[in-house]
């Protein structure tokens, strides 16, 4: 660190500046004391020391609660440590998985010497956009056939949410968005930074570890007309609690009657039930009634493309003309953010989705991932039952998707981390994908200990 003051140092910079000072006219200039022929140290000049950086007041930002778990996990030297934090799929061997069909698609791309690395259009890869819309809305969706949908490639789910939120903040008359309580930790930040006002609606019922349907309907019912409502399309994160089909229908009717604008976050299509169409029902129900809605899609989990940041934002509009204008405004949001989206991941997805065989293979691999997770749920439930762990643990098999909201409190979680080297978010959420037949017993032991020793 550079300490000391200007008069004592003799760096090249000082000498040059001193020489220049001597050539100056005697009159005062900004920052120069004509009498002493010295130059006040500039805020950004580190070599003079004693003066602050313009960013000296910047304090350490808080660790991201989810990604921070992995950081802590990596630091732990214990051989029995388990990472049940971030929602990334793991095999039975605890390894990340690149789907075979993705590997093949990537090889095809790499081997195709005619491919170039040019900029994509601002809205991304056209093929990918069309195929993504069809995937979530259905191949025979009238909205798609009538060109009422504008789809833009974005950076995975996060990017799709952010671009959609920025668009709403600029062009939608209502700036309130209702998000479920609880929800993915990044949601409030995404919407807040985009300029929307974030409110919550009741969702999870800790006493049943299921859906607080009455509370949800009440809160949506008393929302301001036209408010935006965030829905998790399936496999709610972090709770794994989804409305039934009947409940979705009632939610839809209420939402439409209050002109609420549905904004779907679809991060687990195919991953929840193992079936792509089943997991898209909530979205398709809303589109079917002819109304408008917004969908953010992620291919991070269901195609295992996490780090490639592949996603899509679709806005279903009343007619093609509106969709065209909306698309042009989405471009204005994207251009000053990152100009155009990354090509690699989207090319892989498009390759898989457009080839019938590869698409088939993908559905098989997807179902295998979903099945393994369902299997882990059963195993964990059985393990807790066989230990006689106090409490009702049936929610483990009732909840769906990658996460289980265990109901453990932060004290119990901290205990499990300290004594059993189990890493999870402090809200008690565990990623089932991080479990294997081999490690389920250790987790069951830890839960049992936490529940029996700590309230």
């Amino acid at each position: 660190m550079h300490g000391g003051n200007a008069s004592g140092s003799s760096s090249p910079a000082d000498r040059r500046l001193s020489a220049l000072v001597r050539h100056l006219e005697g009159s005062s200039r900004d920052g120069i004391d004509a009498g002493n022929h010295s130059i006040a140290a500039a805020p950004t000049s580190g070599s003079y020391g004693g003066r602050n950086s313009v960013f000296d007041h910047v304090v350490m930002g808080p660790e991201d609660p989810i990604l921070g778990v992995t950081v802590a996990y990596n630091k732990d030297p214990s051989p029995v440590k388990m990472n049940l934090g971030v929602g990334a799929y793991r095999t039975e061997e605890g390894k990340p998985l690149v789907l075979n069909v993705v590997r093949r698609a990537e090889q095809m791309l790499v081997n195709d010497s005619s491919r170039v690395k040019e900029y994509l259009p601002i809205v991304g890869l056209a093929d990918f956009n069309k195929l993504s819309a069809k995937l979530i809305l259905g191949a025979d969706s009238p909205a798609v056939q009538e060109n009422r949908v504008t789809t833009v490639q974005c950076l995975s789910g996060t990017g799709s949410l952010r671009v959609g939120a920025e668009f709403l903040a600029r062009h939608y008359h209502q700036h309130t968005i209702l998000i479920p309580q609880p929800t993915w930790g990044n949601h409030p930040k995404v919407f807040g930074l985009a300029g929307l006002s974030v409110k919550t609606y009741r969702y999870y019922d800790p006493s049943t570890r299921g859906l607080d349907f009455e509370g949800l309907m009440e809160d949506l019912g008393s929302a301001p007309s036209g408010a935006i409502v965030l829905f998790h399309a399936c496999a709610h994160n972090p709770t794994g609690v989804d409305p039934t089909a009947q409940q979705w229908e009632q939610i839809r009717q209420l939402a439409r009657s209050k002109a609420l604008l549905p904004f779907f976050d679809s991060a687990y299509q195919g991953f929840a039930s193992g079936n792509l169409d089943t997991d898209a029902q909530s979205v398709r129900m809303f589109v079917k009634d002819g109304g408008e809605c917004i969908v953010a899609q992620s291919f991070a989990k269901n195609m295992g493309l996490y780090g490639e940041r592949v996603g899509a934002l679709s806005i279903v509009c009343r007619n093609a003309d509106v969709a065209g204008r909306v698309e042009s405004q989405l471009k204005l949001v994207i251009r000053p953010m990152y100009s155009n989206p990354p090509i690699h991941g989207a090319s892989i997805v498009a390759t898989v989705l457009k080839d019938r065989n590869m698409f088939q293979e993908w559905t098989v691999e997807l179902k295998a991932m979903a099945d393994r997770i369902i299997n882990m749920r059963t195993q964990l439930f059985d393990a807790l039952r066989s230990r006689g762990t106090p409490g009702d643990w049936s929610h483990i098999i009732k909840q769906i998707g990658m996460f289980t909201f265990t109901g453990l409190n932060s004290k119990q979680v901290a205990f499990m981390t300290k004594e059993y080297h189990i890493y999870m978010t402090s809200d008690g959420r565990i990623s089932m994908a991080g479990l294997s037949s081999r490690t389920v017993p250790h987790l069951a032991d830890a839960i049992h200990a936490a529940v029996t020793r700590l309230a």
Partner: protein
Amino acid sequence: MAHLIRVGCSGRLSKYSSVVGATRSMSTAWWRHVEPAPKDPILGVSEAFLADPSPHKVNVGVGAYRDDNGKPVVLNCVREAERRIGGNLNMEYLPMGGSVKMVEETLKLAYGDNSDLIKDKRIAAVQALSGTGACRLFADFQKRFSPDSHVYIPVPTWSNHHNIWRDANVPQRTFHYYHPETKGLDFASMMDDIKNAPNGSFFLLHACAHNPTGVDPTEEQWKEISYQFKVKGHFAFFDMAYQGFASGDPERDAKSIRIFLEDGHQIGCSQSYAKNMGLYGQRVGCLSVVCEDEKQAVAVKSQLQQLARPMYSNPPVHGALIVSTILGDPELKNLWLKEVKGMADRIIGMRTALRENLENLGSPLSWEHVTKQIGMFCYSGMTPEQVDRLTNEFHIYMTRNGRISMAGVTTGNVGYLAKAIHEVTKSS
């Protein structure tokens, strides 16, 4: 049960409209009031070019490199890197700050292999979505931590710079840069603006190969600018999108930054691999901010990550892997340096050819600036009306500010291009 309220929906939704209900099948139209947005002035050119069926068409619009056959190029070092990483792996999330290895190598390029700042860990750096993403992250950071500051932007500049700082809600001011009369640098006015700005102002500087003019300060001028920045306590943010591409030598192209560093400035810097590694669509770049010490750098980096997380969570892995594979392997890195020089040399050759062609046609104007300017772009000095004629009569596509992307010029089309330019300018 749900209440069904039918209301006559007018064409416009006013913020203060009273109950706007919807029936089960007839929702209110949310977006009817949305106006079509203007086309992006740069990317819109390529769209128009693609739509043109003429066999003579020439695209000297967007700044993407083309070989002498007018074809896009994937560098050999990139192909080899991809071959090595393909089928590897996993596609796990990168940390929020991106690939550590890629960032390390990237800092060396800007700050020097033996930089003390790197050794002392004084640089807060994160992988960003190419140059755009790096600038945007910095603009958001500037807004959050220097909320009362403005940004001084050169006239002219890359049009998206204005969009970036506007969307970050940082108010903009401009400073003189381009001198239309000389088609060079208006150094005196630029220095005046620097002196007249309030102490401690934030300035956006193009490290090399200024976009769109191709006009760069000389080394001596950079030294004076740096000195004046010290006097005024200004903050220098460098946008370096063309390192290696300007002169063919990355070290030389980083000279402006090195001068500022030598003078002790704590700069900010955006770096892009779009052009110099031809990784355009991969969106690979880096944002760095020099701090007083390691502790501050850690704090600043953590805050940059806080801004990235609600925008895209973490940056894409593929392009970063390509970069770190190339820069981490001495042989591949050497190959890259050769290929970058090759690209820069071809462009310098085209500048000479274009100028010679115009002079041989007997143009009454001076085209000296074509070879004096540097980098991908030539600020021709043509008016929007002349550009329109080039497009409508000759199917030549460029942005209406008269900026020619020299990368789009080939031995095959330089003659045609010169003729067309001569045609529309000979009477001016």
